[in-house]
């Protein structure tokens, strides 16, 4: 059983390798911190436009710290939609973080509570992208902290800039800062379309979101996203996508094993075990 006290002396003093890891994390997330600036400006200025005070606008970024949920919630406040609908929508938007936490569980859950709370709070799409490098890499909490904290500061400074600009400049909305959302999300979604079922999911979600927006259906985001997810899952099931991918992976492994067996006679027994385990999987 690891307690906080046993770990603490090791964590507390400022050690050069920790500072190095922190800096490395900060640098790794830097491109994403830059990309989030227009988006933060939008979050700040939009909050002012919707009628929040500057303190409330900043608090959204400082306390909630979830860009897409913040912007969608502000849109709903503007449309006069109630708190429960906002919270259900937030739950759907943020549900992907359950997956991130599960993927990072083996690395973060053995850490002391204050580390778990801090890294849990900072776990965004962006931090997950730089910190989750698979089980082969040794996980460094200071690297994750550097990435997460610098991203948090960047997001909040950009929000502050938006609050100041939103107070000073009329019609900031007409500049089209909302294109920053579209550009970022397109850049995040497109590389994930690796299977036909994800393409189906994206197309269904896209079509329904547009149709709902045209008919001014307020639950459009929920309807479109859940329908898209369901369509993707069903498509994968009907076409047996996972099984086929597994089969072709096995075939590839077998071919490789055979090729190795042909060239290296000494390792025959090893490759045989490999191809057998490949068939089993």
């Amino acid at each position, binding site marked *: 059983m690891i307690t906080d006290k046993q770990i603490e002396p090791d964590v507390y003093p400022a050690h050069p390798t920790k500072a190095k890891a922190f800096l490395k994390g900060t640098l790794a997330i830097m491109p*994403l911190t830059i*990309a989030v600036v227009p988006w933060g400006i939008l979050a700040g200025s939009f909050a002012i436009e919707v009628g929040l005070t500057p303190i409330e606008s900043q*608090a959204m970024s400082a*306390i*909630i*710290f*979830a860009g*897409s*949920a913040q*912007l969608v*919630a502000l849109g709903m406040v503007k449309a006069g939609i109630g*708190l429960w609908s*906002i*919270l259900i929508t*937030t*739950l*759907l*938007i*943020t549900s*992907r*973080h*359950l*997956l*991130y*936490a*599960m993927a990072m569980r083996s690395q973060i*859950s053995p850490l002391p509570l204050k580390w*778990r709370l801090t*890294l*849990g*709070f900072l776990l965004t799409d962006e931090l997950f992208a730089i910190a989750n490098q698979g089980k082969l890499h040794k996980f460094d909490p200071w690297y994750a902290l550097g990435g997460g904290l610098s991203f948090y500061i960047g997001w909040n400074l950009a929000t502050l800039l938006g609050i100041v600009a939103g107070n000073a400049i009329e019609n900031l909305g007409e500049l*089209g800062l909302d*294109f920053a*959302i*579209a*550009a*970022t*999300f*397109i*850049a*995040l*979604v*497109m*590389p*994930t*379309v690796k299977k036909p079922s994800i393409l189906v999911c*994206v197309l269904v*979600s896209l079509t*329904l979101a*547009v149709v709902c*927006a*045209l008919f*001014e259906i307020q639950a459009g*985001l929920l309807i*479109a*996203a859940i329908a*898209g*997810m369901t369509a*993707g*899952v069903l498509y994968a099931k009907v076409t047996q996508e996972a099984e086929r991918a597994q089969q072709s992976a096995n075939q590839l492994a077998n071919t490789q094993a055979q090729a190795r067996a042909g060239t290296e006679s000494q390792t025959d027994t090893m490759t045989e075990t490999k191809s057998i385990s490949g068939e089993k999987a």
Partner: protein
Amino acid sequence: MIWLMIFSMAAVVFISRHLLLEPKLPLRLSKGTQTFLSYSAPAVLTAIFAPIVFVQEGQLDLSLDNSYLICAVVATILALATRNTLLTTVLSMGLFFVIH
């Protein structure tokens, strides 16, 4: 009202991020739930950006005058060709501010 929204939203977001990091929690997501959730990011993000791109002033706008649509197509091509988030975002937004 706004403060209530901020704190309740923060609770929902924080719980979803922190819950599965807790070692004492015996909770595991089933295979089916995991598969379903793996479609959540593309579905949710698409449902947010699609109306921004395709709907202008309450109307479906598929014309070449829709700078959102033009730049979204450019962003899509860039994202697929380079798989680079920063390059895609910066170039497509640069183009957007020039033609909008």
